């Protein structure tokens, strides 16, 4: 057989190194650039603190926020609050995410389920998590149940919506190819439909993580006796802006870390989507 075509991947030995180099530089930049931004903001914040133009009680300086953090750590509330809040976010996210993916796969594939549920679910989507808090308290009391409910509800809707849409975008030629190759419907679903929808499902899960934090704080702001949201509320009563700032910054860092982790897992699992 006279096969003389040059494989496009073999003559790339030299660009390979260059690719690695630019890749290294780029990941260095992605790590470094945010640091520049943080240093910049911290610098301005420090200057404002030093100048003394704004009252400490209104806008605390960085060192006050730091010592408030240390204080909360030393009396142990910070650890318990973080553990409580992260636990609630994790439980709520797991319930909501699992339900969202499962139902999304069903409404995406089964016309009957779609007809029965989609209009209703779309009606729920604009209802914000915070509006559900009163209902959640009536139903589940002020214990953990109401927090789980609010978080999982919010996560569920977003994950469902994205999963459902991912299912709509499975390319027709993949299904056609699969059927001419004699695959059973189950195998087609598991090894063609699911991977084809996976990028959308992961986009939904990533949004779900962010929303888990948002709705968690909403739930904790009213009717809780621990957690970051509760501690924020408490800090308001004592006008402890330094504690508020500390908690808000921690919330931001936790959310960003969670997003990074999910993004990283998604990239590993949906490896073919790169570039």
């Amino acid at each position, binding site marked *: *057989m006279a096969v003389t*075509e040059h494989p496009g*991947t073999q003559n790339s030995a030299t660009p390979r190194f260059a690719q690695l180099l630019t890749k290294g530089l780029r990941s260095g930049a992605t790590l470094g650039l945010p640091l520049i931004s943080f240093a910049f903001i911290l610098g301005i914040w420090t200057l404002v603190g030093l100048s003394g133009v704004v009252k400490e009680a209104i806008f605390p300086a960085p060192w006050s926020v730091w010592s408030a953090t240390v204080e909360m750590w030393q009396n142990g509330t910070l650890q318990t609050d973080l553990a409580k809040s992260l636990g609630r976010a994790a439980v709520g996210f797991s319930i909501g995410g699992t339900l969202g993916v499962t139902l999304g796969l069903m409404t995406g594939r089964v016309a009957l389920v779609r007809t029965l549920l989609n209009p209703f679910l779309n009606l729920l989507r604009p209802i914000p998590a915070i509006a559900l808090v009163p209902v959640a308290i009536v139903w589940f009391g002020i214990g953990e149940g109401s927090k789980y409910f609010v978080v999982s509800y919010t996560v569920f809707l977003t994950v469902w919506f994205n999963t459902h849409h991912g299912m709509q975008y499975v390319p027709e030629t993949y299904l056609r190819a699969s059927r001419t190759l004699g*695959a059973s419907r189950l195998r087609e679903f598991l090894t063609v439909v699911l991977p084809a929808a996976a990028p959308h499902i992961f986009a939904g899960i990533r949004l779900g993580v962010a929303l888990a934090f948002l709705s968690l704080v909403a739930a904790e702001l009213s009717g809780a006796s621990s957690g970051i949201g509760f501690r924020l509320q408490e800090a308001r009563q004592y006008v402890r802006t330094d504690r508020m700032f500390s908690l808000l910054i921690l919330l931001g860092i936790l959310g960003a870390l969670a997003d990074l982790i999910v993004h990283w897992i998604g990239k590993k699992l949906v490896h073919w989507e790169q570039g």
Partner: protein
Amino acid sequence: MMTDATQPKGRVEIDDVVIRFTGKQGRVTALERTSHALEPGTFTALIGPSGCGKSTLMNAIAGFVTPAEGAIRLDGRAITGPSPEVGVIFQQYALFPWFTALNNVRYGLKQFGLSKREEIDRARAALAEVGLEAHADKYPQQLSGGMKQRVAIARTFAVEPKVLLMDEPFGALDAQTRLVMHDLLLGIWRKHKATVLFVTHDVDEALLLADHVQVMSHAPGRLIRHYHLTQERPRALSRSGNELLEIRDEILGLLHPKTMLADAL
């Protein structure tokens, strides 16, 4: 053309078939009443202007589209949906990007319930047939267009379909790669003896490859001319005699009637 007397399988009968679509402007006829048969082991090229319904006819044989009237039969049995007896090679390859080349080929072999060892061996053999054994563990994104289509060919032939449908399979490839693919396809086809229907809009490609060339009219499509080519392969328009060149001119005339040519100028 040598025929395999022991296995006269893969006869496609297109019996009084009409295909219609419901579009924005109501019902549109994509394929006018057509009757035709593809004999087992023959290589037919279907050529026609774009939008004439040649892909529609192919999709109906694949079982993707149901005819409004008439029936399509494979060895006497009506085609009611896609099946591994009718393999399809798509223009855009349709390889699964989450599988390596090897696992793409294995996907079609799963239905036979082979042992894992046997399945891998057969998939490797299929890749070797298209000269890609060294690239078995690469993902489609790491392969060139020509290599992707070779994986697709290996994947389809590995399940031994009786009929092979190809929808402008080399349309996205450069001229050089195309010629390589022609040799490769003819080699594999001779070995597997499937009945081939090859949709193209490239007259030269049709003349180089096929036993039978069917020319389709502008939409709504119907078969308007048939040529039976008996020239030895491998063919080249320059050395396979004047007959091919004359046929080529005729087909070009059918595809681009003078009036349309005048419009274009």
